[in-house]
């Protein structure tokens, strides 16, 4: 019996959605997953090349194309290699088998007599004149894969497992037009928007004459209800109009926020959907209770470049180029917002600045499409302003996590309740509980929907990584899914994993201290999972844990461990810090078990990037609000880690086996917790609330 097909193949059963033999002796492999700087295009190409016995150079990967490629929803959750890679592997194995069958018929031999070298079919090592391209016309690519062809065993891989250089980097280091931002068709019109400050806000008046005077050039103003765009053949004219517009627009029904709203503590007591997951409520009174509460504020994706899209509406068909994380979902979400049938829309992915989750990319695509529909026949390039990117992208939700643990007489957890307060982690249009931003500003805004979080089977949202991997007899989660956050929140790298891992791993150090044991030894005493033990032991070895100094010296060494989503890659991190008024991270060691790794250097790059981004979140980042919304709207208001603050990082993959475990988000949670524990070791005092800012350190030392 065949193994069940990957979900992507079930959803896109025709072979021709995945593979096409081009006339120039290359093969087009299509994926619904897109390049967001994580190297997925390169890794998927490696998988296809190995399975087809083709040189890497003959694979052309088409990613994120609604016309030719498969629908694989969004590029999220460290799932691309598993989902798309698994599908491509099966499709290529199937096509290889079908092609060999056809060639064998022509050659009057058995398919087993044939070998494949550079896409050519050899018999007894001799050329036969047959290859993929000679027989491709005889294969019915409209069929679904049967799943009968067996993909190669891992020991047969020649290209998978190699650190092939990224396909997209040469263009990016030589300043080619690499991004959607760089596409300027002839007659392009540049567009900027005036954003509705919040859903429900109403534009009372707009002094268009004043805006035109400020713009100093040819300008069209596109308006529908509370959506406004400024359009010009000259980019700086559109920009000047948008900059001036704020002072010439009067809004009603602005949201009212207070300073309390920007802190995670505000969440407790807000109306919430309360969910109970896991063990039933404990019926006995706790004997030896321990409780800790940690928090993380709202944080931003903070892409290096603002969101941008290109759209053209011509002869009744809309084409949109976007750097969003899923082109098929974008197309589905654009159709109702624009009142177009889905067949009238093509969405194509182009690269963008790194997004790390659901940022403004999709919203900019709708903005551009709205303008394009009103100015048919003209390509519209709509770019958000920097302050718009910071002010209107969905942010990563603040979280408050309390662990209530009852200890046994050896100081080990006997009963454990994780209580979580958070707004939703996913408001992706179509898959979550949100809409493309501009729909809220149009004449008929969509109805308010009940917020949801990803189900636990998909890793959860606020509950992501809330279940400890340690041996705990009874564990339950109380999840308070706060119904209305102060600002729009959605997916940001790792969702709830970082605060949850921070809480669990801070607790581990506290519990070890209570029984006077070393934190590594304490963890190992309640960790049966062999792959986890291996990483904890390895990180202790790498970081020189046995020589760890006393607490309270100002120098600290801390460690932490987690398995992302409890089913993707395992990762352990150690951090060496020096704490005076601020935290200086001196060194980071990071070790991961990601199973079969397609591209080791690419995986290490992801580990390092996850470490640095998590250091930045943990030490520096918090989205700031004013009375009406997000106030931290530039890099001075939202500082991130700089070159001078980045420590030396050692990232290592242990020899993995078995299936590939997604690696893109695994290092974030352990990094935050390792730093938290290192700071506690340095100070002798634990800081439970992120970011570990100067103010919090001074308060802890006071």
């Amino acid at each position, binding site marked *: 019996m065949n193994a069940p097909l990957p979900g992507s193949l079930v959803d896109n059963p025709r072979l021709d959605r995945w593979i096409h033999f081009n006339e120039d002796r290359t093969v087009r492999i299509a994926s619904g997953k897109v390049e*967001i*700087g*994580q*190297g997925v295009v390169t890794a998927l190409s490696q998988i296809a090349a190995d399975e087809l016995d083709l040189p890497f150079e003959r694979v052309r990967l088409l990613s994120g194309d609604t016309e030719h490629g498969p629908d694989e929803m969004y590029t999220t959750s460290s799932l691309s290699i598993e989902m798309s890679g698994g599908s491509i592997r099966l499709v290529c194995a199937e096509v290889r088998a079908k092609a060999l069958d056809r060639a064998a018929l022509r050659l009057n031999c058995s398919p087993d007599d044939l070998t494949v070298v550079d896409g050519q079919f050899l018999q007894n090592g001799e050329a036969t004149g047959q290859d993929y391209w000679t027989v491709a016309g005889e294969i019915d690519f409209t069929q679904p894969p049967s799943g009968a062809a067996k993909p190669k065993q891992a020991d047969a891989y020649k290209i998978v497992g190699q650190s092939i*250089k*990224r396909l*997209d*980097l*040469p*263009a*990016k*280091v*030589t*300043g*080619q*037009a*690499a*991004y959607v*931002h*760089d596409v*300027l068709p002839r007659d392009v019109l540049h567009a900027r928007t005036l954003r509705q400050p919040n859903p429900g806000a109403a534009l009372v008046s707009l002094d268009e004459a004043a805006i035109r005077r400020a713009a100093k*050039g*040819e300008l069209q103003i596109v308006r529908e209800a509370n959506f406004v765009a400024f359009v*010009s*053949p*000259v*980019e*700086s*004219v559109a920009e000047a109009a948008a900059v001036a517009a704020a002072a010439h627009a009067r809004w009603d029904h602005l949201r009212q926020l207070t300073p309390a709203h920007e802190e995670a503590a505000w969440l407790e007591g807000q109306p919430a959907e309360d969910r109970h997951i896991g063990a039933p409520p404990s019926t006995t009174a706790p004997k030896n209770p321990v409780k800790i509460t940690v928090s993380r504020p709202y944080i931003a994706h*903070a*892409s*290096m*470049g*603002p969101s941008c899209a290109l759209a053209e509406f011509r002869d009744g068909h809309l084409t949109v180029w976007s750097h969003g994380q899923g082109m098929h979902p974008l197309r589905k979400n654009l159709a109702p917002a624009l009142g177009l049938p889905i067949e009238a829309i093509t969405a194509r992915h182009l*690269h*963008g*600045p*790194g997004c*790390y989750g659901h940022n403004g990319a999709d919203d900019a695509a709708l903005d551009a499409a709205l303008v394009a529909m009103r100015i048919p026949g003209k390509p519209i390039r709509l*770019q958000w302003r*920097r302050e718009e990117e910071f002010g209107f992208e969905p942010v990563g939700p603040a979280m408050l996590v309390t662990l209530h643990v009852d200890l046994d007489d050896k100081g080990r957890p006997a009963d454990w309740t994780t209580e979580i307060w958070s707004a939703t982690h996913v408001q992706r249009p179509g898959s979550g509980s949100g809409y493309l931003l501009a729909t809220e500003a149009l004449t008929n805004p969509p109805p308010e929907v009940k917020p949801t979080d990803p189900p636990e089977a998909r890793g959860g949202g606020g509950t992501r990584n809330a279940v400890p991997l340690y041996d705990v007899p009874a564990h339950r989660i109380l999840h308070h899914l706060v119904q209305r956050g102060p600002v729009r929140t959605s997916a940001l790298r790792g969702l709830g994993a970082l605060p949850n891992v921070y809480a669990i791993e801070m607790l581990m150090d506290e519990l070890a201290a209570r029984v006077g044991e070393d934190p590594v030894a304490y963890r190992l005493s309640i960790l049966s999972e062999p792959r986890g033990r291996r990483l904890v032991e390895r990180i202790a070895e790498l970081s020189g844990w046995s020589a760890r100094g006393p607490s309270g010296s100002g120098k600290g060494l801390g460690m932490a461990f987690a398995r992302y989503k409890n089913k993707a890659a395992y990762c352990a991190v150690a951090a060496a810090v020096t704490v005076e008024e601020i935290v200086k991270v001196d060194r980071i060691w990071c070790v991961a078990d990601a199973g079969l790794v397609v591209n080791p*250097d690419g995986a290490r*790059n992801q580990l*390092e*990037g*996850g*470490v*640095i*981004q998590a250091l*930045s979140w943990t030490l520096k980042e918090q989205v700031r609000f004013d009375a009406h919304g997000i106030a931290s709207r*530039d*890099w*001075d208001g939202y500082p*991130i880690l*700089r*070159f*001078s603050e*980045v420590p*030396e*990082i050692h990232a290592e993959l242990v020899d993995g086996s078995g299936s590939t475990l997604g690696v893109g988000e695994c290092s974030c949670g352990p990094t935050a917790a390792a730093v938290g524990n290192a700071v506690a070791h340095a100070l002798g005092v634990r800081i439970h609330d992120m970011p570990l800012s100067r103010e919090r350190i001074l308060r802890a030392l006071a």
Partner: protein
Amino acid sequence: MLSLGGPAREARLAIAFTVNGSAKSVDVPETTSLLEVLRNHLGLMGTRYGCGLEQCGACMVLVDGQPVFACTRETGTIAGRSVATIEGLGTPDRLHPLQQAFLDEQAGQCGYCLSGILMSAKALLDSNPKPSRAEIVAALDRHLCRCGAHQRIVRAVERVARAA
């Protein structure tokens, strides 16, 4: 001469300067940013817009060899000067040693910050061919990278410095 899409609003003379060694002349208001001129008038898309506030470094170019934020630099101030952009550094077929080193180290993820960083690194190495690690970090500290490729980027510049 390249001309602005819209009608001229005021009497003005074209602004002449060199870009990557070639003479250029543009007919734009003097206050137009150098970034907009490079991208929208000269078709050099390699210099990226990040913030428009001199806070991120994505738009860094060299003017007479010195790193300059192109997003705020008025083109009128460039008249008669020499501008170097990422496109002048090298091409995929003829890489500059810095570009080669960035590929060797796989120093980048999304890559949006790299053009500006490469130009700052070039300015550093032109004036100080053997910088220390601390000098490299100091020269790049005006640049932001959100993906977390910092360590690889510093290693790539060190690689070129070692070879000098």
